C-alpha cells in the first residue's frame, strides 16, 4: 500500500508532528479495500498521541480486523495547523491505513471519552464531507455510530449520531457488522438497517425515540416511536473476561504518544462506589482476569511489539485480588527481557511501596494520593473510604522509604462542602509536611515537595450525585482563592483547574437533546479541541448558548428533584435509579457504603450475573 497518496510533502513539511498523519506503524493492518465487505473508520476525536493511547481503541481495532470480511482503520482529529492545510487544499478527512477519505467507509465510529471532545466530532464529520445531522444523511453516506463512557448520556449527540453502542463493544460490534453485511446485500433504506440493529441489546437509535418536555424545560417523557423498540436500552458487558478477545499484537507508533507502552487490562469495573465517580458505577460489575492468562498475554505482546515497558490498566489496580502474584510473575518474566513494569497509582501501603522498589528500581518518582476532600466528614459524604490516619501512615512509610515528592488530588464544589472542608485541604497538606519532618533526617529523602491539586466537581449521570448542582464558576474561583490563601508552607505548591471547562462539562454530561444545537453552534463559531487550553474559547460558547436560547446554568447549576425524569432515564447502565437515590440520601447523612467485596449494596448490576455479585447475594 503506497502511503501519502493524498497528502503532499508540501503540506507535511509545514505542519507540526507530521508523523501523526503518515501511518505505516509496526503491526498496522493493511487489507485490500476491494476484498472486504465492511470498511470501518474508528475515529478518535482528539490528536493521534491521545487517541493512540486509548486501550479501547486498540482492542476494537484488532477485534474488527480479525474478521476477514471487514477492515478497520484509524482516524484522528487533525491538529489545527493540518486542518487548515486540508481545508485550503480540499483534502477530506482520511483514514491512516489507506489514506482513503472517510466518506467512502461503511461505518464511522467515534469513541466518546470526554464531553469536551464533542465539537471535534462535528468538525471531523464536516471535514469528511458527511452531513453533521443524522436526518441529512442518505444512502451514500456512512453510518455514524459512537460508544464509550459518555454514551451513557447520549442525548446531546442524539441528532448527530445514527446509533450508539452502550457498554462494552466486543460482542455488539460483531453482531452489528453481521446484520450490516446482510442488509447491504439487499439494503433498502438507512432506516431499515437501524430498525434491524435496534433489536440488538446495547444498541440505541436515538431517532427512534421521541422526547417530550415539561414547561419548565425538564424532560417529561422519552418514548419509542414504535412499540417494538425497547423502552429501556440496556448496556452490554462481557461476562467472562478470560475468554474475550484481547489483541496479542498492538500498533507500535513511531512518534511518542501519551501512553507509549504495553497495557494489561486486569479487570473491568470497580468495587469502591465513590459517589462522584461515574466510572465506578457504569462499568460494574467487577470482573477480573486470571493472572496466568495476563502473564501469557504480556509475553505475547512483548514479542510482537518490542515495547520496553508494560503498565497495568484498570480503575483501582490495588483492588485486583491477584496483584501480588501477578506482579511477581510479571517481574520474573519481564526482567530478563529488560522490560520495565510501570505501576499505576496504587493505594500506598507497605505492600505497594515494596512492589515499587522491586518493579521500578529507579529514582523514587512522585507518589500520588487522591483523598478528594479535605475533611473526614466530606470524605464520608463522597464514600471515599480513606481516613486521615491511613493517609498520614502511608506518606510516613513513603518518606521513610526515601520518597520525597507527594501529590494530593482534591475536588472543590462537592455536595455539602463548606469552607471548613476547604481549609481541611490546606491542613492535610501541612500534616503531610509534618509527617516528613517527623522522619529523622538521615532516613528521609532530600527536597520535600508536596503538591495539592484541585479540580472542580462535575455531577455526572449514573452517580449518586446526578441530582446535584455544580457550584457556579464564581463560587469555584472564590473557593480556589480561599484555599490559596490558606496554604502557607513553602514546601507546598497549589495547582487548580480552570472552572470554565468544568462548567461546560457539567452542561453536556447531563445535557438533553436541546444542548446538541449548542454544540453545533459553538463549532460554527470555531470551537474545537476545547480541552486544549490554548484552543478553548469560552466566550464563543457563551454566545452559542445565548443564540440557541439555552441556559447552561439550567444544566450545570440546578439541583434536581428526586422525581425528575432525566434525559438518560431510558438508558439502562445496570445501576438502578433507586439505588443511586438511596446513595444520595446516605451521602447527606455521611453514611458509608461498603465495597462490593465486603457486601452487596444492591446497585442493580447483579442482574449481569458476574461472579462477584453471585458470591455476595
Amino acid at each position: 500500500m503506497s502511503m501519502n497518496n493524498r497528502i503532499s510533502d508540501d503540506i507535511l513539511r509545514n505542519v507540526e508532528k507530521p508523523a501523526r498523519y503518515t501511518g505505516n506503524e509496526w503491526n498496522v493492518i493493511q487489507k485490500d479495500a476491494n476484498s472486504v465487505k465492511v470498511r470501518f473508520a474508528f475515529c478518535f476525536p482528539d490528536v493521534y498521541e491521545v487517541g493512540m493511547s486509548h486501550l479501547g481503541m486498540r482492542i476494537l481495532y484488532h477485534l474488527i480486523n480479525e474478521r476477514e470480511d471487514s477492515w478497520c482503520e484509524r482516524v484522528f482529529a487533525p491538529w489545527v495547523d493540518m486542518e487548515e492545510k486540508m481545508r485550503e487544499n480540499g483534502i477530506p478527512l482520511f483514514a491512516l491505513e489507506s489514506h482513503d477519505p472517510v466518506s467512502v467507509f461503511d461505518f464511522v465510529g467515534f469513541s466518546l471519552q470526554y464531553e469536551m471532545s464533542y465539537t471535534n466530532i462535528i468538525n471531523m464529520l464536516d471535514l469528511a464531507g458527511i452531513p453533521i445531522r443524522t436526518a441529512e444523511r442518505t444512502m451514500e453516506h456512512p453510518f455514524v455510530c459512537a460508544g464509550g463512557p459518555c454514551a451513557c448520556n447520549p442525548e446531546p449527540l442524539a441528532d448527530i449520531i445514527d446509533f450508539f453502542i452502550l457498554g462494552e463493544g466486543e460482542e455488539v460490534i460483531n453482531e452489528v457488522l453481521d446484520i450490516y453485511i446482510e442488509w447491504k446485500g439487499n439494503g433498502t433504506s438507512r432506516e431499515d438497517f437501524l430498525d434491524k440493529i435496534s433489536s440488538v441489546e446495547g444498541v440505541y437509535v436515538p431517532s427512534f425515540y421521541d422526547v417530550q418536555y415539561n414547561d419548565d424545560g425538564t424532560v417529561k417523557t422519552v418514548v419509542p416511536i414504535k412499540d417494538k423498540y425497547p423502552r429501556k436500552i440496556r448496556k452490554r458487558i462481557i461476562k467472562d473476561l478470560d475468554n474475550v478477545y484481547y489483541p496479542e499484537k498492538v500498533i507500535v507508533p513511531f512518534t511518542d504518544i501519551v501512553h507509549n507502552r504495553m497495557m494489561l487490562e486486569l479487570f473491568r469495573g470497580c468495587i469502591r462506589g465513590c459517589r462522584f465517580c461515574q466510572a465506578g458505577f457504569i462499568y460494574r460489575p467487577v470482573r477480573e482476569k486470571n493472572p496466568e492468562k495476563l502473564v501469557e498475554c504480556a509475553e505475547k505482546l512483548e514479542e510482537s511489539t518490542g515495547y520496553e515497558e508494560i503498565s497495568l490498566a484498570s480503575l483501582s489496580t490495588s483492588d485486583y485480588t491477584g496483584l501480588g502474584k501477578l506482579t511477581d510473575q510479571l517481574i520474573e518474566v519481564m526482567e530478563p527481557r529488560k522490560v520495565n513494569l510501570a505501576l499505576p497509582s496504587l493505594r500506598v501501603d507497605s505492600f505497594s511501596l515494596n512492589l515499587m522498589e522491586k518493579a521500578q528500581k529507579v529514582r523514587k518518582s512522585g507518589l500520588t494520593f487522591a483523598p478528594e476532600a479535605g475533611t473526614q466528614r466530606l470524605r464520608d459524604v463522597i464514600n471515599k473510604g480513606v481516613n486521615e490516619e491511613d493517609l498520614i501512615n502511608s506518606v510516613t512509610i513513603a518518606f521513610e522509604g526515601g520518597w520525597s515528592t507527594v501529590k494530593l488530588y482534591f475536588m472543590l464544589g462537592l455536595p455539602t462542602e463548606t469552607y471548613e472542608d476547604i481549609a481541611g485541604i490546606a491542613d492535610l497538606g501541612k500534616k503531610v509536611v509534618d509527617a516528613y519532618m517527623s522522619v529523622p533526617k538521615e532516613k528521609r529523602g532530600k527536597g520535600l515537595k508536596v503538591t495539592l491539586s484541585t479540580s472542580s466537581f462535575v455531577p455526572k449521570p449514573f452517580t449518586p450525585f446526578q441530582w446535584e448542582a455544580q457550584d457556579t464558576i464564581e463560587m469555584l474561583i472564590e473557593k480556589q482563592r480561599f484555599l490559596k490563601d490558606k496554604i502557607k508552607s513553602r514546601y507546598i505548591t497549589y495547582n487548580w483547574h480552570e472552572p470554565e471547562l468544568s462548567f461546560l462539562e457539567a452542561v453536556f454530561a447531563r445535557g438533553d437533546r436541546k444542548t446538541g444545537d449548542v454544540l453545533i453552534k459553538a463549532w460554527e463559531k470555531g470551537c474545537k479541541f476545547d480541552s486544549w487550553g490554548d484552543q478553548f474559547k469560552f466566550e464563543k460558547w457563551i454566545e452559542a448558548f445565548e443564540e440557541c436560547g439555552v441556559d447552561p446554568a439550567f444544566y450545570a447549576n440546578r439541583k434536581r428533584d428526586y422525581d425528575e425524569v432525566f434525559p438518560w432515564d431510558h438508558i439502562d447502565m445496570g445501576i438502578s435509579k433507586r439505588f443511586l437515590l438511596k446513595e444520595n440520601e446516605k451521602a447527606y447523612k455521611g453514611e458509608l457504603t461498603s465495597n462490593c467485596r465486603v457486601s452487596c449494596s444492591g446497585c442493580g448490576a447483579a442482574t449481569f450475573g458476574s461472579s462477584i455479585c453471585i458470591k455476595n447475594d
Partner: protein
Amino acid sequence: MNGLRLKFLRGEEVKYISHLDLMRVFERALRRARLPVAYSKGFNPHPEMVFGLPLSVGVTSEAEYADFGIEGTIEPADFMRRLNSQLPSGLKVLEAKKKFTKDNIMASITMASYKITVSTEGSYERGFLLEKLKEFIERPSIIVKKETKSKVRDVDIKPMIHHLCLGDTEEGVFTINCLLSAGSSANLKPELLYDAFAETFGEGIKLKAIHRTGLFVSRNGVMVDPLDNTVLKGTNSKR
C-alpha cells in the same frame, strides 16, 4: 566490545519521523528480533547503538549508518536478516560488517552528499541553470543566517560546500548534487544550502525533495565509506 556497523536506507514511508523516533524504532526492532545487543548498565538499560548524522524530518536517505554493541557472537549477515524482518517498511538494512575500531560512527562522519530536487514553475534551459549554479558558487562568500537557541548569526557556508553540480534536468524539475561538511566540527544542512541558492535564483523555484546519497569518514585526508575495511579495522588503534 564487539560491534557491528550497519548501512541502511530510510525511505518515503518513514521520512517524517524524528531522529529520536528512529532510535526507538530500532530499539524495538532489536527486541523483537531477539538480537544479542549489548545494553547499558544502570536503572534504565538501553541498547548500545550509535547513529551517524541525524536526518532532518522530511529527508530520505540511501546511506544511513549505525553502530551496535554486541554481546556474544552473531554473524553480520544473520544480524542483518533478522533485523530486517522486524523493521517497518521504509527502513532496510543494506549491509552489515564487523567493526573493530573504537571510533563510533557519529564522531567519525566528516562529509555528506545529497541530491536536492527542485521544482520550477516554468521550464529552464540546462545552460541557464548551470550559469545560475556557477554564479552562486563563485561568490566570494555565501552568508546565511543560522539560528541557534539564543540568537541568529551570520555564517559563511561556502567553505562547507565541497562540491556542487547540476544533476538531471527535466520539464519542471531539476536536481542539484552536492557534497557538504558534516559532523561535529562543521555541519551544513542541505536545506540551508538550498535556501541560500533559492535567494540568489529569485522567484520561480520550490524545494521538492532532499535525499541523502552518502555519508563519509575521512582517513588521512581521504574521504572513505564508513563500511570500508580500513575504517572498520581502525589502523591507528591497537589490534
